[in-house]
């Protein structure tokens, strides 16, 4: 493991967490981004659960792709395999946490079913394969993408908490003003484009 490899990892991490943010520039995981961002507390719980699941699923998907799909020459089945892996994994993680790691289950349990097949999870697994990342880079990419999701959803939740008291034109109350906020955040995140 040389220095170049490490620098490459850093670049992948910054790119997928900030520059091409998963929600704000790739539009993956939009439903939980809009649906679980009313309060900072639930938003951070959701963010943590997403980080946990995406990191784990990109590891498992990477291992399965490298050691099962590639040797058998059935890489074209990746979509089917990945979606089933992710769905089964989340179910398994939920049962495992419930049985053995009670505190973590109490913190994340509510959010796990919401991300069973959140498109960001599948999106990261497929992106890792399409971009030809090895397993470690894939895991770093997964973690960074999920961290980007957490950053975006927590910021949005913070703004939404403040927005409760604002006088918003009637047609824009509810979802539209949240979308406008998200659009302004997306403009702000465009500023990271010069980072790499």
């Amino acid at each position: 493991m040389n220095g170049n490899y490490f620098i490459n990892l850093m670049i992948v991490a910054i790119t997928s967490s900030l520059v091409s943010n998963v929600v704000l520039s790739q539009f993956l995981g939009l439903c939980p981004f809009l649906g679980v961002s009313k309060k900072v507390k639930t938003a951070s719980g959701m963010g943590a659960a997403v980080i946990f699941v995406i990191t784990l699923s990109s590891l498992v998907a990477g291992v399965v792709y490298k050691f099962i799909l590639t040797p058998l020459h059935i890489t074209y089945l990746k979509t089917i395999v990945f979606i089933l892996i992710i769905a089964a994994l989340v179910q398994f993680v939920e049962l495992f946490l419930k049985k053995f790691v009670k505190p973590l289950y109490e913190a994340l349990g509510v959010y796990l079913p919401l991300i069973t097949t959140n498109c960001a999870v599948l999106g990261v697994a497929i992106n890792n394969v399409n971009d030809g990342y090895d397993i470690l880079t894939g895991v770093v990419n997964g973690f960074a993408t999920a961290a980007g999701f957490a950053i975006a959803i927590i910021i949005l939740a913070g703004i939404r908490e403040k927005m409760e008291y604002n006088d918003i034109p009637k047609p824009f109350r509810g979802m539209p003003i949240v979308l406008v906020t998200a659009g302004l955040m997306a403009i702000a995140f465009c500023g990271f484009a010069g980072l790499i």
Partner: protein
Amino acid sequence: MKSCIERLFNGIIKENPTFVLTLGMCPTLAVTTSAINGLGMGLSTMVVLALSNLIISALRKVIPDKVRIPSYIVIVASLVTVVGLLMEAYVPGLYASLGIYIDLIVVNCIILGRAESYASKNKMLPSLFDGIGMGLGFTFALTLIGAVREFFGNASIFGLTGPKVYGTSIPVLLVELVNKIFNPDSSSAFVRGLGDFFTGEFASFSPIGILVMAPGAFFVLAILTAIQNVIKAKGEAKGKDMSKIQSGCSSDCMSCHESGCSRRLVEPEKTEAKKTEEVKEAVTEAEKPAEEVSEAKTETVEAAGTQDVKSGKEDE
């Protein structure tokens, strides 16, 4: 056959997945940077949706109830793989520009939603047409949004700039006209805009580039949902049933029990679902007496009113 046409109409207009139900927003926002992308994405989703509805409807008596969601996912994922490979072979340019979103058709909530709510309960032919109708509605919506974004953001539609007028293409002229009208620092902007339109002076032309970038997608969707809100409010004021609008997925995820959304492999939530049903029943039961009371009240009031009128008449 009548029901099939009804399904088509239902999918395209009455329950349009994008404009009415607000479903499947991730691909809607991501691929509508141009009209052709929207059309391609809509059509490939339609193929998957129609075939998955057909297959699921054919297998509805074979698939055990407990593992139906994973079975649906496998069927949909297989179809998505087939469509993806076909697109890669025959329309590689479009496939490259849609990228990862073709694979992500698997997790589009429209598809599992239709499988769960229609195909698993109905015969094959209506299910097929339901899929085609919903797919056409989705295609129509994506193409329209894509065309609007491309028009204002890139001054073209389907990549075409159209016939030229005064050496400038028509979309450019129209965008520039809109720019001129909304230009705040000119006192008679509209008149000047019209004047420029006829003399053809558009030296300072630049389209609203942000609309084809990521933030523009959010703004377009914001305007769309705002329009939905207005229509919903107006309809409700008239006393129409507007519950369908935005019923897809715009509410709170934490209280969402849609199995097509927070879907699970098996359903350990049976007990919870039963509980909520019980609660619902209890609530409706609790509401019933209140309604009866209020009805009774209105009846008595009405009766009193008629009596008053009668007594008044008698007095006369």
